[in-house]
């Protein structure tokens, strides 16, 4: 079977994320597209979706697929049927947009760790305490996207 197109792989990755809260593994992608694990790993590395789908540099597994994180973060987004982790405070609201449903966000103050909860939906801003600090200027966002 030929390697998956970038579009087919993108749709598969986000289908799995939205349905189950985590991106597919190298093995799951290989099985889904009937390709070898090595080809699956190469396909992930070649995705380069807007510089926001990034493989883990050591394992090759999907590490983040904007605005989703593959692993736990301080930005937990709880939907009707799944929960997700966002990469940052911007992305936690981006998940509500992509999921297209009302979500509950469980986060915390970066300074003191106090819980901050809010409801968010794709159409209206959340009503909650809090501000968002952008540490890195836009010209440097893509130098180290994990840190950004």
């Amino acid at each position, binding site marked *: 079977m030929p390697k998956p197109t970038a*579009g087919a792989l*993108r*749709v598969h*990755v*986000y*289908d799995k994320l*939205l349905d189950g809260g985590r991106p597919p593994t190298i093995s799951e992608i290989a099985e889904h597209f009937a390709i070898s694990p090595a080809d699956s790993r190469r396909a992930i590395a070649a995705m*380069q*979706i*807007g*510089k926001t789908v990034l493989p883990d540099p050591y394992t090759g597994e999907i590490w983040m*697929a*904007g*605005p989703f994180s593959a692993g736990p973060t*301080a*930005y937990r987004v709880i939907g009707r049927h799944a929960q997700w982790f966002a990469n*940052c*405070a*911007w*992305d*936690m*609201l*981006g998940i*509500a*947009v*992509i999921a*297209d449903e009302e979500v509950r966000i469980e*986060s*915390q*103050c*970066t*300074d*003191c760790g*106090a819980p*901050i909860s*809010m409801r*968010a939906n*794709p*159409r*209206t*801003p*959340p009503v*909650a*305490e*809090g*501000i*968002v*600090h*952008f*540490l*890195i*200027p*836009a*010209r*440097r*966002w*893509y130098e180290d996207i994990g840190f*950004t």
Partner: protein
Amino acid sequence: MSLFRSEGHLAAWLATTKQKRGEVLSLTKVFELAAAWYSDPRDPAWRPRTRDESQEVLDSVGLTGDFWELPS
């Protein structure tokens, strides 16, 4: 892009970590940005934006100036 309870907590964190203050947005503004920036990648017509298109998104929600200038 980190969440803080208040300006006071941001100031404390900047002092502790010795980081330089960047830009601070309200949750309402970050929501506007998220709504303008993100679309469903499952849409077959989805494609990555160009640099200029991304800059237009920032401009469209009022994020202009040197801090919000994407790399060329």
